[in-house]
């Protein structure tokens, strides 16, 4: 695919070493039909845009809906798979692009030659501003300060995020188990404010505490015994501690319907204008 985009850049007259040009080529690959002549083929190779799959977009019924492999196979994905595939292509083309998070959402951030940041919304095929992210109403000042949202992640931090994906896949398949902590602790080690890892940890301790309480109930043990149970108290403290940590990071749960409304708000005239302005800026910088 990187070869395909290389030929595309060539036909468009883009500078092959220009980072903005590389990102624009990748963006066009996601949002447009590209008919590109390859050197080693007689017929041009055509690729088609990738679209947002609104059905079960959080993968609650079918976890594989979140997968990049599904996106490649079907040409439709969501805010998890689309940005990751973008970053894979950027990696292959030696382009610099970053993953960033918004409430229940992820997108791409790139920096132009002037040092200005642009947000690439692959779910809606648009370039947006931070203002668009703020419109969710779920981005708090503490969330920005703790860098859980709108912060461009390093490549290492994205790989740490893949560890979280692995753990969430595990939970979906086998349920919450102690193994989960190995993954989340590894992710946190490489990104201290990794919201996803802290959320997974919190759910783990929540379930573990419920498991302990059920045993107390089944065995007819007293509340006094529970209060004196150091191990149970430790689990309780871990659960409460992780909740407090998540709150301090500025996390607020965004309901699915509000999320969907927010995604569709990109169709607002103001956002469309924002997209046109940003596109003009980028095109101007790469000389097209």
């Amino acid at each position: 695919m990187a070869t395909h985009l290389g030929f595309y850049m060539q036909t468009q007259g883009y500078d092959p070493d220009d980072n903005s040009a590389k990102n624009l080529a990748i963006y066009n690959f996601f949002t447009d039909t590209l008919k590109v002549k390859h050197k080693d083929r007689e017929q041009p190779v055509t690729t088609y845009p990738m679209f947002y799959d609104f059905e079960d977009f959080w993968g609650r019924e079918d976890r594989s809906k979140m997968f990049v492999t599904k996106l490649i196979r079907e040409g439709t994905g969501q805010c998890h798979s689309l940005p990751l595939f973008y970053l894979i292509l950027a990696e292959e083309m030696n382009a610099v692009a970053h993953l960033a998070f918004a409430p229940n959402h992820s997108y791409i951030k790139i920096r132009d030659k002037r040092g200005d940041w642009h947000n690439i919304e692959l779910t809606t095929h648009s370039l947006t501003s931070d203002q668009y992210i703020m419109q969710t109403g779920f981005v708090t000042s503490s969330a920005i300060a703790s860098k859980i949202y709108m912060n461009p992640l390093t490549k290492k931090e994205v790989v740490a995020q893949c560890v979280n994906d692995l753990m969430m896949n595990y939970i979906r398949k086998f349920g919450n188990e102690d193994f989960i902590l190995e993954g989340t602790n590894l992710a946190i080690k490489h990104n201290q404010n990794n919201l996803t890892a802290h959320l997974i940890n919190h759910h783990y301790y929540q379930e573990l505490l419920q498991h302990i309480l059920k045993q107390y109930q089944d065995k007819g043990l007293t509340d006094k015994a529970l209060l004196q149970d150091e191990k149970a108290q430790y689990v309780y403290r871990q659960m409460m501690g992780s909740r407090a940590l998540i709150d301090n990071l500025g996390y607020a749960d965004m309901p699915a319907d509000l999320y969907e409304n927010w995604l569709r708000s990109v169709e607002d005239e103001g956002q469309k204008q924002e997209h046109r302005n940003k596109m003009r800026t980028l095109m101007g910088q790469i000389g097209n």
Partner: protein
Amino acid sequence: MIFPKSYVPAVLLIFVLATASAQRSIPELEAIERLLQTPKPSSFGQYGFDTPAPHPFLLSPSDFYHLNNLSVQRQNQQIMDEVDAYIARSMAQKARAQSLIDEAVREMNEHEIQYTLSGRMAPGRALFYTSLRQLEEMLQGRQPLSLKKAVFLSEFAYDPTLSWPDFQ
């Protein structure tokens, strides 16, 4: 040769028989021979035990065999009964022992709480373990960072039908 008078009929009979046998066919001779043979026991195959009519005073070999056989059967039955009784006793003892162990374990577990969420063993986990180790290698700098590989590892562990060459 002069024969005593009393031998005359016997000599005549021998003469007559010898002359007649020389003229008869072989099957007829065989029939006569069968008539003259001493009776023998039947050569037909016999099924089951030989049970001749009981003799009022003496034990025949088959009677002796029969009685001896009954004795062996009684002895065998006795041994089998003893073995059965032994097994029953052993089973009862074992059950009592198991019951005591169960009771002890119940008492021990009465206040024992599990503080982990493990034990839901199922196949397919190994892929998750190996994927995590590989991601760890990347994060610790022992393997080059590859987002493509990292994404594939996280998805492949969940769905082992995915193919790396296809993904590439």
